[in-house]
């Protein structure tokens, strides 16, 4: 079945057509919106993929979705727009709660003046989350970013992370920007960070954190940046400084001790194993392929053995995005984690 982006509408009449759509949809439907979620992508076919994602998440996080499939390299200028609704049954009374979607296909000049197209169709007074599914290109200009409350991106997909992180840093540093940087790769690592934080919360375990000598991580192919973000997080939290960059880098802890880091590739979850060792203790986290559980263990000569399982969320985009949207707030540790391993990107 071919993809149907919705009802084609003239760009100048989107709001009016949305109003008509509501009138035609009849009673029993409630419009709901917590945010504007705009998604920008330069790949052909992205409207279909992103419509699928919106369909999956709008039931849990009501929104106005604005999808843009752009080809800024094309000549001339063209713009097409469609509107649609995603409705979900709620409650015993049988009413539906609906989120609106506006889809754009932009080419040439229209794609290069994104803000004039997208920002004139926001649900006013609600925050704007812009999910940038393309590479960032210099020069970074404030006129786009000052409108954005939360900038979502996924550093996992970056071919050249060093350059991209530098551009992200520029956006964060813009005087007029109040944008919160939301790396979905950082959100992806949250359950691992939570599980690891839990396993060291037994008396006797915390002092061992200051005495760690090695860290080993197994990550799925294509998830090296996920693993490095975790290394950066631990380095920042535990006061490690990078002393020897490379594939298996070395850090120095606050007491001058050496900490060796090794990264391995293994099929399965983005992070399937993590092992931290000191002379007297070992902390381990693992997730078997296709399992929805993390197993965490702590033990050693200075610790009573402890083991537990906690839920490991699925790692589909839907889950990661919902997790990020539900958490909100700023991510102060993210920039510090990125900085702690900036020589390793």
């Amino acid at each position, binding site marked *: 079945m071919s993809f149907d982006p919705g009802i084609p509408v003239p760009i100048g009449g989107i709001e009016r057509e949305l109003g008509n759509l509501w009138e035609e949809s009849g009673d029993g439907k409630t419009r709901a919106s917590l945010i504007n979620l705009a998604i920008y992508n330069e790949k052909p076919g992205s409207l279909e993929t992103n419509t699928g994602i919106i369909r999956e998440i709008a039931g849990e996080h009501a929104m106005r979705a604005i999808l843009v499939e752009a080809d800024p390299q094309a000549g001339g200028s063209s713009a097409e727009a469609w509107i649609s609704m995603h409705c979900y049954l*709620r409650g015993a009374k049988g009413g539906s709660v609906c989120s609106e979607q506006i889809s754009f296909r932009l080419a040439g000049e229209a794609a290069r003046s994104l803000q004039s197209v997208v920002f004139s169709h926001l649900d006013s007074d609600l925050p704007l989350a812009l999910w940038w599914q393309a590479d960032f290109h210099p020069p970074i200009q404030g006129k786009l970013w000052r409108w954005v409350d939360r900038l979502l991106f996924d550093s996992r997909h970056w071919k050249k992370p060093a350059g991209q992180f530098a551009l992200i840093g520029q956006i964060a540093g813009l005087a007029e920007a109040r944008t919160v940087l939301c790396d979905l790769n950082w959100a992806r690592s949250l359950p691992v960070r939570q599980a690891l934080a839990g396993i060291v919360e037994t008396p006797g375990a915390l002092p061992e954190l200051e005495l760690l000598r090695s860290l080993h991580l197994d990550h799925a192919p294509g998830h090296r940046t996920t693993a490095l973000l975790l290394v950066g997080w631990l380095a920042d939290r535990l006061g490690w400084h990078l002393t020897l960059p490379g594939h298996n880098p070395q850090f120095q802890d606050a007491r001058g001790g050496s900490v060796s880091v090794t990264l391995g590739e293994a099929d399965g979850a983005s992070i399937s194993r993590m092992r931290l060792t000191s002379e007297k203790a070992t902390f381990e986290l693992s997730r078997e392929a296709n399992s929805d559980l993390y197993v965490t263990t702590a033990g050693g000569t200075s610790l009573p053995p402890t083991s537990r399982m906690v839920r490991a969320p699925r790692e589909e985009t839907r889950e990661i995005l919902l997790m990020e949207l539900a958490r909100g707030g700023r991510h102060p540790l993210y920039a510090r984690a990125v900085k702690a391993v900036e020589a390793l990107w």
Partner: protein
Amino acid sequence: MSSPTANPLREGIANRLMPEPCTLVIFGATGDLTHRKLIPALYNLAAEGALPPAVTIIGFARREKTSEQFRKELEEATRKFSRTPLNEELWASFASSIHYHQSPFDDAEGYRRLAAEMEKTDLARGTGGNRLYYLAVAPDQFPVILGHLRESGLNTAPPGSWARVIVEKPFGKDLATATALNQLVNEVFPERDTYRIDHYLGKETAQNIMVMRFANSIFESIWDSGHISHVQITAVEPLGVEGRAGYYDTSGAMRDMIQNHLLQLLTLTAMEPPTSLSADAIRDEKVKVLRSLRPLRGEDVFTHVVRAQYKAGLINGQPVPGYRDADGVPKDSATETYVALQVNIDNWRWAGVPFFIRTAKRMPKGGTEIAITFKGVPRVLFNQGGDVLDENVLVIRIQPDEGVSLRMSAKMPGSSLRIEPVKMDFHYGTSFGKATPEAYERLLLDAMSGDATLFARRDEVEEAWAFVDGIEEAWKTRRDDLALYEAGSWGPAEAAELAARHGVTWRRM
């Protein structure tokens, strides 16, 4: 917010105090509360990684059974009552931290064995000497349990550790018994380690009352007698006594609902802004509201309070028996199943604003809400002649269908000037599809974290009883004021008259 565990890996992961490893001892572990609420709540917390892995649960009860049998029963209960589906592997991991301790509550030896078991647990699992005792038993069991905890030294913790107690309501049945109970508890556990659960305070919407008031400038600036005409706080349900007749007939609606839940909602609605979000700063302000309640005594009770009892009627078209025909209820019972009262808060902010509080069983539908009715606009322009405009009403719905709505006036489309009330409505369930945690999850986590904000402090409980006692005392002097109402109706005519004396009608839910 700093973490008491000083775990550097926790920073930035959750914006709340973190629970500390502890041994949780549940007295009354074979009871309903443990099966329906406590264990499902703990399971969900553990599954989400919110509990430290060392947390150990010991069920203390009289019946003979093994830990394995106990876990099996709890597994079945969790499968039935958990808000998330039970995962076998997760359950197995969680259940390994659950143990059963069989002992009569009055057997000193049972407590000595408990002490030894907990010491072993400290070594084996790293619970660090922290103890949390949950009294999920009837209050008449408190003295014996607390006495033995003290005698066996289990009420104190080694330096750097803590011993806390969670007490379930009812916190007494009048001021004298509540004071005695509090005295008893505080002889064993200091007030700072005493956590009195009122599960209403763990509900998301109850917590949202403070956020709405103090995080939105538009509300707080008009939250006073200059702008508000009256306030109605309602908690009603279609259910009858449903097997609780033994307790309910000695309690009644006043003690069962008003003294705790509804006065708690009143304090959250009427309190001044606290100086901080600390537990005591918030509770200081709440208790000031209770102290400002104009006492109702003697004849005042009969002009400000209506009590009633339901008789047979129809609920959802089905006939239901009257209260006195319910199993376990004496045929001549004078216990109230309906209470409506009008109270005044004698402070600067609320002088002259009547607060109406209503609770009842066997109403046509159920719900809990707080409705703030604002004063009408001056009787000029649109509000003159025969057309009196409806006042603005802000409604905070606690349950079901949690949310907030605001009624205001709007011009109807057309060439004539016709003004009608319209409603702006915010539904939690519409905007947030995600299921919210159970109140007990939040409250258990708070108790393990040492955050008493959502628990009732001793002076709150006693001030509430002091207010309610005046009414109960007056009721003892008469019986002819007990009105009757049909099950499935909205209550007796006397309640409507009470409101009408202030120019108010009770809200339709």
